[in-house]
């Protein structure tokens, strides 16, 4: 299967043989590139790098919390680390992952030669990278007037009025705000680009209802980003006005309202969770059919559910604020709207299961990750419904139960499927397979570590351990559970290191992948691995949702049934 060549229109490789380039020339070609594949790889590299950085930060946090009255970190460093962990994971891992996958795969899947605006694409990437630099420069440059090594310590949602000059002196908070404004512009550019690409660059015959679900989800995701990242930018501009020009937006002493920041932040912050999880949905929607050897079940329902989640997610933000105190009408509205998300999400889970049902499932590494994703995402959804009930929320908000809930999504769904996506598409990008044996080690260790950590965290939450605490006395009954959580964290770290080793060694020693190692059905697998600069020598024409199936099975093509 691995060496199957696909004689589809446009899969010819017309690249002239090139001479080997020197290191400097290679570097130069990456810096000036506007090619969607190179930019996709750069986004992914940025994301994986910061995944390791933010992972290292949280390992320090877990060592600090492993036993009572520990002093591994100072309280100040602890605050900085959890702020940087959250900010990094959301803005420098989650969002670059969206654009990494979208950049590399969407143009190939829709039969285009590049994104709609290649230069805007490069600009967006470099803005994101510059924002990352600003954020991490705060470790050495954020000292301002007092102290050294002063990274932001205001948590990743930076509630007012903690961010006011009086309470957060120095420049660390400014670096935080500016970094988010700068990466925000990059994100806006990326979102505009993905939408324009999907709407205007599809190859002949690729109608919207024949488009792979991956491209659909990235379209909805980018649409969501357009209207969520911009309120964040607006709120950050207000914060900078407050801090630099003496504005009064969040100055309670001048009549300003801290609540306004809560609302503005979560108007961004909650849809953002869906923005981050959509790539996981997108990857599951490609990997599960291919490894179950069946077409996706209920394609139109999947599309409708994705669009539905996008819309509903814009109206649920204040469920982060039940404990802040709202009117009972406000509480009721946000309880109901939050529960409403469960319906389209449930449709998705059922459709993935129905795709697997009766299929000839091949449990290769990507499929293992996607299968675990289904169960973990379901569990995370159920704790989400629990937290959506306002009285329950009053009890458990700001406890470790909430942390367990959202990490079940962020790690159990997003990180798991990111790994699935990398195992699945890396052979396309590098031409070499990742080791299946190391992949299984990675999967099982990560799965075990994940459950040790985050299952246990629910129980610490029930026992009343609040989040953000630097340490705790020994008589609270949290000692053993916290040690277990920290051990699970270290197992996950080992698994991620195995993954990093697997990825790097596959670049040199991996088995040659060929065009279509998984016997898949979407257009990207018709190009050579790695694809030539122009992707397709002639524009492909498609007639169904699975163009490569039609090609491999001319006697029984899909378009007869659609």
């Amino acid at each position, binding site marked *: 299967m691995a060496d199957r060549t696909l*004689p589809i229109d446009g899969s010819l490789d017309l690249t002239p043989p090139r001479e080997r380039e020197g290191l400097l020339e290679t570097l130069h070609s990456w810096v000036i590139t506007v090619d969607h594949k190179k930019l996709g790889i750069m986004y992914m590299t940025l994301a994986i790098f910061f995944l390791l950085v933010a992972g290292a930060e949280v390992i320090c946090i877990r060592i600090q919390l492993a036993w009572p009255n520990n002093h591994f970190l100072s309280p100040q460093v602890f605050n900085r680390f959890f702020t940087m962990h959250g900010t990094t994971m959301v803005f420098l891992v989650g969002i670059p992952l969206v654009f990494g996958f979208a950049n590399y795969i969407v143009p190939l899947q829709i039969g285009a030669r590049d994104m709609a605006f290649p230069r*805007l694409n490069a600009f967006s990437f470099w803005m994101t990278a510059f924002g990352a630099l600003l954020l991490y420069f705060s470790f050495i440059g954020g000292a301002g007037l007092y102290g050294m090594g002063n990274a932001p310590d205001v948590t990743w949602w930076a509630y007012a009025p903690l961010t006011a000059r009086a309470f957060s002196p120095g420049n660390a908070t400014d670096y935080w705000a500016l970094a988010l404004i700068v990466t925000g512009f990059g994100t806006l550019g990326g979102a505009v680009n993905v939408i324009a690409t999907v709407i205007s*660059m599809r190859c002949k015959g690729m109608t919207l209802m024949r488009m792979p679900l991956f491209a659909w989800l990235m379209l909805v995701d980018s649409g969501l980003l*357009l209207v969520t990242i911009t309120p964040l930018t607006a709120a950050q*501009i207000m914060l900078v006005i407050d801090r630099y020009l003496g504005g009064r937006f969040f100055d309670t002493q001048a*009549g300003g309202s801290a609540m306004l920041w809560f609302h503005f932040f979560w108007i961004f912050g909650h849809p953002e969770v869906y923005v981050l999880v959509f790539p996981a949905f997108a990857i599951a929607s490609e990997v599960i059919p291919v490894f179950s050897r069946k077409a996706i079940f209920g394609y139109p329902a999947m599309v409708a559910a994705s669009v539905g989640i996008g819309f509903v997610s814009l109206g649920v933000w204040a469920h982060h604020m039940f404990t802040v105190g709202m009117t009972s009408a406000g509480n009721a509205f946000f309880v109901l709207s939050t529960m409403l998300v469960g319906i389209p999400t449930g449709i998705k889970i059922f459709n993935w299961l129905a795709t697997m049902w009766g299929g000839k499932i091949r449990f290769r590494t990507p499929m293992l990750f996607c299968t675990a994703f289904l169960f973990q995402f379901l569990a995370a959804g159920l704790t989400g419904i629990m937290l959506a009930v306002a009285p329950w929320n009053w009890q458990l908000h700001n406890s470790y139960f909430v942390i367990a809930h959202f990490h079940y999504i962020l790690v159990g769904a997003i990180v798991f499927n990111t790994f699935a996506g990398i195992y699945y598409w890396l052979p396309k990008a590098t031409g070499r397979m990742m080791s299946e044996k190391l992949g299984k080690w990675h999967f099982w260790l990560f799965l075990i570590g994940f459950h040790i950590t985050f299952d246990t965290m629910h129980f610490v939450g029930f026992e009343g351990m609040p989040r953000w605490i630097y340490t705790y006395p020994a008589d609270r009954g949290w000692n053993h559970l916290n040690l277990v959580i920290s051990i699970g964290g270290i197992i996950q770290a080992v698994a991620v290191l195995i993954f990093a080793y697997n990825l790097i060694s596959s670049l040199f020693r991996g088995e040659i992948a060929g065009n279509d190692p998984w016997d898949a059905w979407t257009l990207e697998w018709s190009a050579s691995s790695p694809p030539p600069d122009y992707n397709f020598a002639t524009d492909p024409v498609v*007639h169904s949702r699975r163009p490569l199936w039609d090609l491999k099975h001319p006697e029984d093509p899909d378009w007869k049934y659609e």
Partner: protein
Amino acid sequence: MSAIPLVPGGHIHEWHLPSRGRVGMYCLIIGESAIFTIFVVAYVFYIGKSLYGPTPQQVLDVPIFNTICLLSSSVTIWLAERAIERNSIRTFGIWWAATIALGLVFLTGTAIEWYKLIYRDGLTISTNLFGTTFYSLVGLHGTHVVVGLSMLLLVLIFTLTGHVRQEHSERIQVLALYWHFVDAVWVIVFTVVYIIGK
């Protein structure tokens, strides 16, 4: 590797997709609308909540002339769009220059208004909630006018040097979309600041 044609599943006669420039600009406009929404919400939320003066009733004058100038620039740019579609570059240049002139009048009007507010009425961005929200909302819109004018000016320079031709009408129209958006936002800012807030 030779290419084998696929058996077509129904003929695809025509394949037209929307222009990527327009789609991109509409997306940008949606994103920008969200930014303005947040600033407008902040303005409306803080109406009458300033703990000390000056208040909008005391210091704000309704900038009717300014508003007429900016809104009519939407008409002139539309006339310019029509002219370039008909390949009359000269007419295009005239209407385009008129648009820029009207935009500049608007900016000058804002500058005069702000000068009066700052030096006569003592209202700055840090004076009170009204000052903060007023200068940031009107200033955000003004920033968009400045960006729009710079791009319009660039096109005017290209027109004067003879580089704008009929085939660029698509791009001109995409840019004009942005200008229409800036004008439309002013209608909302005007309503909120000078009618509801006063």
